[in-house]
């Protein structure tokens, strides 16, 4: 494993988004993972529609909440093609599901892997390098006031309430950390990112980890 790895360096991570007052973090994290998996495979980074997942994933609750795993199960079962963000733009509220013809551009998933990696963050790093960015859930209560630095304390596991995307890790300094993309805009945290210590399941970051294949 490298000491430092970040999928952003390979230009396969889309810009930080802003979920505004929509509780659709679960959709942002899943769509971010699909965009990256597609970019890694096809060398073409496309911004895909988060709103489509929010509106159409019937086993979730749109802007009122949802689960990354339920969204991935829905995408895998239906093989729905996610269209471009520009075609189905984000409205920050749940709407009616729009359907698109088969000929339109879209990305469907071929499968996904989802595991509890608690106590195995070394393996989780390997998965990040081998599979691509990881959609994870965390307890983000203390993130309300976060400005920067590496989260090591005041962030327990076992009460996941937010979904984000891990894009890399850095073990070159005294505290190894995950590089995590959030969906609260670029003005939050470190240009929209947060650093979470690796190794003790801080914020429950290793409890619900998924990676998608396209």
């Amino acid at each position, binding site marked *: 494993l490298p000491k430092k790895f970040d999928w952003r360096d390979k230009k396969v991570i889309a810009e930080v988004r802003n979920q505004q007052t929509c509780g659709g973090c679960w959709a942002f994290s899943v769509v971010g993972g699909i965009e990256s998996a597609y970019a890694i495979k096809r060398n073409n980074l496309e911004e895909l529609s988060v709103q489509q997942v929010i509106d159409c994933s019937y086993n979730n609750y749109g*802007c009122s*909440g949802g*689960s990354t795993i339920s969204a991935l199960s829905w995408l895998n079962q239906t093989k729905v093609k996610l269209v471009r963000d520009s075609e189905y733009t984000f409205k920050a509220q749940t709407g009616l599901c729009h359907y698109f013809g088969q000929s339109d551009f879209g990305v469907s998933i071929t499968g996904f892997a*989802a595991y509890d990696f608690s106590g195995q963050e070394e*393996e989780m790093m390997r998965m990040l390098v081998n599979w691509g960015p990881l959609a994870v859930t965390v307890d983000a209560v203390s993130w309300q006031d*976060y400005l920067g630095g590496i989260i090591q*304390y005041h962030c327990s596991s076992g009460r996941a309430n937010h979904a984000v995307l891990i894009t890399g890790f850095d073990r070159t300094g005294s505290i190894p950390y995950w590089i995590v993309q959030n969906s609260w805009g670029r003005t*939050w945290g470190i240009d929209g990112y947060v650093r979470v210590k690796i190794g003790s399941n801080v914020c429950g970051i290793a409890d619900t980890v998924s990676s998608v294949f396209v």
Partner: protein
Amino acid sequence: GGGRERETVAAALRESAKRVRFLNSSSNDNTSAFYGINQFSHLFPEEFKAIYLRSIPHKLPRYIKVPKGKEKP
């Protein structure tokens, strides 16, 4: 907003400042997380949670490492 709304925001900001002092008390080096006033400071924690923290938890099986050479395609 009106006077009452201003009062509520001021109360949320006071609570945020108190929380930030507590959270920063564990930051003993320059790599530790630091906390402060940001775009969510005007919200009470319950409001913040109700708006932004809407991920539903999902229990997953533990990852079992496959020994080298025994991986399936």
